[in-house]
């Protein structure tokens, strides 16, 4: 007997549920849908324009199942479970042996146990057989339970391990990698790709193993019980294989189409809803509905094709199965009449055949799960093979609390070879100084800031903190002493206090409040419904831009680094916030080295020293007061422009 999911009725839900994600589509040779879909795609191009496809994702989904690096990853993930896997193999073989034994015992029961009773003989054989069956059932039940738990645990362990490894690895990879890779891809690696693997592990793995084992087992049983009848049954084999192949080929060929159209429907929908302002303001609704109906129509049609493929495949398997059963009844019945075959064996054949055909339908489903899982594995293993360009030293120079002298010694840097951003930069920032960086776009201000925070390493020369090369510091020591606050003002999920604590997770509540007070954030935080325990909501949606900036400042103040790097926000704040932020700046800049990328003149004015940069070179260097009066200086011109605009 097979598990209920393997029967047609129960499968419907399963089949269908999976289809939403991994609809398997094919292009049946009738109906001409393929042509219409192609036409629709051409039509779609007309209004969508031409786009560059991400070919790297496509090739990964190709026909090569498991490339070497995926296999390596899989191997290393399974290595800790070697023993368990071997036990699992033994258990699953046992389980299926027991499962296969039952029809055989039934046949014995009918052939050997019934006749003695019919002739008023003893029921001993019957008792023996029934006892044997009971034992078999217990073995089967137990081994099934054990196998499911084991495979479930190994699967979950593997998932957890993948999640951990990939997450950790992404955190380790340098900023330059992330600049290129984008956060969207990071998220999809760790969510949809991991889920694809999970789906295979929970959805199909078990089924596949059992289907294959049963396939082999049933084949052997049929042939040994009765060679001729067995051979007749096995004639259905090639037919089935043809069916499965037809289905698999078609499904993988158009598998992408459903996904594409589903993605287009989703994008059209999300774009409309997020851009509803523009949609309504520009009376786009009718055209949108046209497009949406067109896309949904195509989506419906490729889906219909997909459903109909299943509608052909499943009854196809059924028909082969039923005809085979019919032939067995005929041929077996004929031989039974001739006395050549017992009724018991005939019954066992019928039971086996049922067992045989049901899992066949599952293998085909598994095919697509397997394909997307292997594509996901491929991408994940690719990520894991990336090496971070910024590494911790093997033997770090210890540093507890730096004084805060930062020095650039003949520093070269280029994002792309031959296009230097910083050519041979020499710069000394004495401890305690506030340095404002100004200059044109692309002058290298952000690069200098990021290099002090060691987001990038120089391509030549060295950057030192209190005379120690940054590359010789452990990450902990470096981050304790150097903190960079970007204009993103990123808020993490959690409370306001959690967000400030990010600067120093082990700080007490008093320290948190003290930090908030120092930057002038205490008042607004206290006014929130739950004060410091108010949830900031997704991405800090609860707070205004100015409030987020103050929380970010409090975070930095709490971390209390020797060197603070600040990419000042450009977002326009309301006047009270603006004043608050200015005051906060003064507080957090005091008593430490500070480097500010200044977007406001008011910030430049509180700096001790201003650097005017262009193309990675220092053009002017001096205090704001000095530079204002420098004849023909850039900073002087800037100041003049400002005064003019307010005249």
């Amino acid at each position, binding site marked *: 007997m097979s598990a209920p999911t393997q029967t047609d009725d129960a499968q419907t839900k399963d089949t269908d549920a999976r289809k939403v994600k991994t609809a398997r589509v094919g292009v049946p040779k009738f109906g001409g849908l393929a042509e219409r879909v192609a036409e629709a795609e051409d039509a779609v191009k007309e209004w969508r324009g031409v786009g560059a496809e991400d070919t790297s994702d496509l090739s990964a989904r190709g026909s090569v199942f498991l490339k070497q690096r995926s296999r390596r990853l899989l191997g290393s993930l399974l290595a800790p479970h070697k023993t368990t896997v071997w036990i699992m193999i033994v258990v699953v073989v046992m389980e299926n042996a027991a499962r296969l034994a039952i029809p055989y015992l039934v046949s014995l029961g009918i052939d050997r146990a019934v006749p003695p009773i019919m002739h008023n003989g003893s029921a001993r054989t019957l008792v023996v057989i029934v006892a044997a069956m009971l034992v078999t059932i217990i073995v089967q039940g137990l081994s099934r339970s054990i196998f499911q738990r084991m495979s479930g645990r190994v699967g979950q362990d593997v998932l957890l391990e993948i999640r951990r490894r990939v997450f950790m690895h992404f955190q380790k990879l340098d900023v330059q990698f992330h600049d290129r890779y984008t956060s969207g891809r990071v998220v999809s690696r760790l969510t949809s790709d991991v889920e694809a693997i999970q789906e295979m592990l929970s959805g199909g793995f078990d089924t596949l193993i059992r289907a294959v084992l049963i396939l082999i087992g049933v084949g052997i049983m049929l042939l040994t019980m009765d060679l001729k009848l067995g051979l007749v049954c096995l004639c259905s084999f090639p037919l089935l294989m043809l069916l499965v192949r037809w289905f698999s080929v078609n499904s993988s060929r158009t598998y992408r189409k459903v996904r594409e159209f589903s993605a287009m429907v989703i994008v059209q929908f999300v774009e*409309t809803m997020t851009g509803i302002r523009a949609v309504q303001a520009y009376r786009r609704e009718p055209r949108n509905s046209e497009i949406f109906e067109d896309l949904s129509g195509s989506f419906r049609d490729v889906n*219909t094709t997909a459903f109909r493929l299943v509608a052909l495949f499943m009854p196809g398997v059924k028909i082969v199965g039923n005809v085979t059963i019919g*032939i067995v009844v005929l041929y077996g019945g004929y031989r039974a009449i001739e006395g050549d075959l017992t009724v018991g064996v005939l019954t066992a054949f019928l039971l086996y055949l049922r067992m045989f055909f049901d899992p066949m339908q599952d293998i085909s489903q598994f095919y697509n799960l397997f394909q997307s899982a292997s594509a996901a594995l491929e991408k994940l293993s690719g990520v894991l093979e990336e090496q971070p360009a910024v590494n911790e030293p093997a033997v770090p120079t210890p540093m507890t609390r730096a004084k805060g002298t930062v020095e650039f010694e003949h520093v070269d840097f280029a994002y792309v070879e031959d296009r230097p951003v910083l050519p041979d930069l020499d710069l000394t920032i004495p401890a305690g100084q506030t340095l404002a960086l100004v200059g044109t776009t692309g002058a290298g201000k952000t690069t200098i800031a990021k290099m002090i925070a060691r987001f990038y390493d120089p391509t030549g020369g060295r950057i030192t903190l209190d005379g120690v090369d940054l590359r010789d510091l452990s990450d902990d020591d470096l981050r304790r002493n150097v903190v960079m606050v970007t204009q993103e003002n990123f808020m993490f999920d959690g409370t306001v206090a959690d967000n400030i604590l990010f600067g120093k997770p082990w700080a007490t509540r008093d320290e948190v409040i003290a930090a908030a007070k120092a930057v002038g954030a205490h008042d607004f935080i206290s006014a929130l419904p739950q004060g410091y325990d108010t949830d900031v909501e997704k991405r800090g949606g609860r707070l205004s831009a100015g409030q987020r900036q103050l929380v970010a400042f409090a975070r930095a103040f709490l971390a209390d680094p020797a060197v603070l790097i600040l990419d000042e926000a450009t977002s326009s704040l309301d006047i009270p916030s603006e004043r608050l932020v200015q005051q906060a700046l003064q507080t957090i800049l005091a008593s430490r080295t500070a480097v500010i990328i200044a977007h406001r003149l008011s910030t430049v004015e509180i700096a001790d020293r201003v650097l005017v940069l262009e193309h990675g070179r220092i053009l002017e260097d001096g205090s704001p007061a000095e530079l204002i009066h420098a004849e023909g200086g850039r900073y002087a011109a800037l100041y003049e422009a400002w005064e003019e605009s307010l005249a």
Partner: protein
Amino acid sequence: MSADLSAPTSETSQQKDLPNNPTDRGSVTAARIETALDRPAAILPKPAPKLDKDGNPLPRASYESMFRMRSYMSPYLGRFVSMFVFGALSVGATIVVPLVTKAVIDGPVAKSDHHGLWTLGFAAMGLGVVEAVLIFLRRWTVSKATLGVEYDIRVDLYAKLQRLPMAFHDRWESGQLLSRMMSDLSTIRRFMSFGLLFLFLNSGQIIVVTIILLNLYWPLGVIVVISIGPIVWLCFKINKQYVSLSRRIQDETGDVASTVEEGAHGLRVIKSFGRSRYIFEKFDQRSVQLYDTSMKKVRLQSNFWTFLEVIPNATLVVVLAFGAYAAGHSLVTLGTLVAFTTLMTSLTAPIATLGMQISQAQETMTASDRLADIFDTDITIADGPAELAQPVRGHLQLQGVGFTFPGATGPVLHDIDLDIAPGETVALVGATGAGKSILTGLVPRLYDVTAGKITVDGIDIRDLRLTELRQVVATAFEEPTLFSMSARENLTLGRPNATQDEVDEAIDVAQAHFVYDLPWGLDTRIGEQGMSLSGGQRQRLALARAVLTKPAVLVLDDTLSALDIHTEALVEQALKRVLVGVTGIVVAHRASTVLLADRVAMLSGGTITHVGSHAELLETVPEYRELLSADFNPQDEFDLLEEVAR
């Protein structure tokens, strides 16, 4: 609802042949393809709530929304009826086949009747074939029907959402709407294709087979009936646990995903503070939580499947033991015994899935409720009866205008009076959060005023047809929205029939020449799924789009904020040209933008506090001076200086 895909293609291309005169409304409407926007949603109206004894309305019945969806099934009635017929017949065939096998064994085999064997054997085979064909027919027929229903609901929902006002969309995240459009709809579709059918068929099959078993040999039948009890009980119980565990896993997967997003989006902050370990621990804690819950599910599943296999197998043993004994004493025939075992095993599946189908029905009810909630939301911003005299002059008046968000305690805007003469441009200056964006949204009626009124050429805008109003008023937003379509289609959003010359001109005004250099020029797909553009490029396209509309009233909501200072200067020069003869509202942060306007209105504390020229306000209003000063960005200025120096 034919699936003719080529049709929309040819019809869409007609779009290009639209008459060139945008004011000629009649022909525009005539050439447009009819869409779901042109008809009411097919969902049945909400029935009047039933009243309890005291006359209070009772809460809606759980099945009410689901039942209201039945109108979507009626176009496919024939297909749904055949689904039931084919389904019932195929279940019938499933039941009959073992009975034929029994006849074979008891009749021809026992009596050595060759002729009978052939007849019955072929009958069995024929039945098997018929069963498969019936399954094929059912699936084939119903796929079109259910997917058609899904499509119909989907386009209706989309149309409804497009008509709902901004106030609705402010409340609803697009993710929530998306899950209604994708997952809730497929839940409904699944139930229609399988759940509904098998809820009936499985119950039927269980009852019929049990009766047959009892008829075949009642003592054995009783044993089976007894064993069905625990299975049914177990299935119901476990299914409940299973559903709740699945929900928890879904939630926890969401938690893990949100930490992943944090780790990705906040990466630079994390690195900067050296908190990788901290964020990893948070991630790990959630992953382990998910692991634990998943393991619970694994255990539950393993118990469930084990039970589900052991109980029928145990029953089989008992049946066989008794059956063999009974056969031995000629109480039953061998054929009966074989048929009995086969039929019995065929019961397991329907019983196991019955629980699933019941929970599917419940999920469908919830999903229908969620959809009905959207369909039942009122469209508060709708067409009025009046028409503007042609040509539109663009005299814009705000009289005592106020706006309060629904549910908010205080107004965002109050007592705003502003009279903008045709052709005049007014700059709006105010701090972040002063309500500038809401004010600009009131003019095209993205929001409706909650106090006072806005008139164009003396007519209250609420009395105008929306399409007409929005043709007269064009807005470029601070956060420009580009859609995943060609640059050209993005540009001509407000005026699909613009000529190439007009497009070129608008591009020129907005300094958006970069579009010509895109890989496929104006045909390049941009937006979410296409070429990604910088903030400044997007703003320029949005500006070009607004300009291209050639409106009588042009609203620029801080449209230049992401431009570099050099481009901004060029755009401002060009805008000056465009704004001649157009009534303009320009939200401005910088002195240079303010200079585009004839007058400046200062917005503070939710109302207009000062109106005057730039010089006047600089002189007399300290807050104004401070505002403009704060927006002086050294980097931009240096860029400009460098540009000038060249």
